[in-house]
């Protein structure tokens, strides 16, 4: 009996003194105005600028990891490539600038202005891929960077969970695709 009691108390001490990471996703608090596809009922589109063509297969794969999530958790994400720039809500282009120390960047826009996603919803986003930095990492991780930026475009902020695609590569991201917490974040925004 005493043994069981001390075991229970030890377990309680562990629980109380070591924090539990219950939800690793962090949200901006705002979202893509017209949603992320509403389970296919309101499909959304992305567009590739010519400059991003070299990353086309990786961009497609990265989208697939967001769209085909049902083996982990179903989400309302429904996106497809379009050649109609104005119909798209996520656009990709690439630069090659070694003075900019970023592999990928996401910019948020709404009517007449670029916005901060913590302050307002956005109508569309542009994702900039920097070849000068992407060349330092392998293709799988490049795909991870693209999936990371797509997560921003849909409303997810950075987090420090290595098993989330929203962790920055430099801080030890160990996945090149979204995982459970990332999908939970999307559902928290759009469900």
């Amino acid at each position, binding site marked *: 009996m005493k043994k069981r009691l001390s075991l229970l108390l030890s377990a309680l001490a562990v*629980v109380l003194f070591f924090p539990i990471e*219950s939800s690793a996703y962090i949200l901006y608090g705002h979202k893509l105005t017209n949603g992320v596809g509403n389970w296919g009922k309101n499909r959304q589109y992305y567009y590739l600028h010519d400059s991003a063509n070299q990353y086309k297969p990786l961009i497609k794969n990265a989208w697939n990891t967001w769209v085909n999530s049902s083996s982990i958790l179903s989400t309302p994400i429904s996106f497809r490539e379009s050649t109609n720039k104005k119909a798209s809500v996520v656009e990709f282009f690439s*630069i090659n600038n070694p*003075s900019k120390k*970023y592999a990928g960047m996401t910019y948020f*826009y709404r009517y007449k202005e670029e916005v901060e996603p913590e302050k307002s919803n956005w109508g569309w986003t542009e994702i900039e891929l920097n070849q000068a930095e992407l060349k330092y990492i392998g293709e799988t*991780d490049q795909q991870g960077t693209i999936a990371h930026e797509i997560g921003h475009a849909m409303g997810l902020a950075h987090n420090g969970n290595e098993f989330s695609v929203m962790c920055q590569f430099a801080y030890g991201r160990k996945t090149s695709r979204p995982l459970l917490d990332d999908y939970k974040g999307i559902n928290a925004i759009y469900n």
Partner: protein
Amino acid sequence: MKKGFILMGISAILLGSFVVVSAFSTNTETNATATKKTTDETASGFITVDTHADIVRAYNDIPSLTKASAIVIEGDVMSTSTKYYKDEIAPCTLSQVKVSKVISGDVKIGDVVTFQETGGITTQKYVSERSRGRDFPPLSEVEENKQVDFKINGLSAMKKDEKVLLFGERYQDIYLVVGGYQGKFKVDGNKIERQSPKGDESFYPTLKMSQSSLVNEVQQLKK
């Protein structure tokens, strides 16, 4: 035996409550931080634009910053100007920094060195012209001239009159801040500290320390 079950039941309830409280408090803290930052930024008088970047190389300590740097200096920002790259959205800032202390590198006190960072002050006109995807509706002259502070992961580029400690890597005939914003420290008397990128506060090392500790560490590493 019965006592054991009661104890287990109490433990389960405590554990459950703790998990719920823990989840709730995580979300609350995140929202509180975002709200505070938003208010501060509005008070600065600029329209702020914040892009969200994925960096691939981390400089989490003084040895990694030192290894990547050609110079380590303390200085005062004398002036700044905005540089634009064709077909790129984010502007860059060129800062003229007057060296007040040389910790490492081939520069002298009093030299003025140029540092380049991504982000900086621009105008709404520039933002609308560079949003390549869409045609913005025409802006009025007042709207065009509105100033925009273009931030990267919530961090502004250097501004005139700031006192900074910089790890610089050589790039053409100027210097870049090592790792984007990672090699830039704010100076407060003898203390130095990096600012955390937005959202990275819980895991980004600010490397707060005294300047004398930094000088010792860098000079040991450069030997």
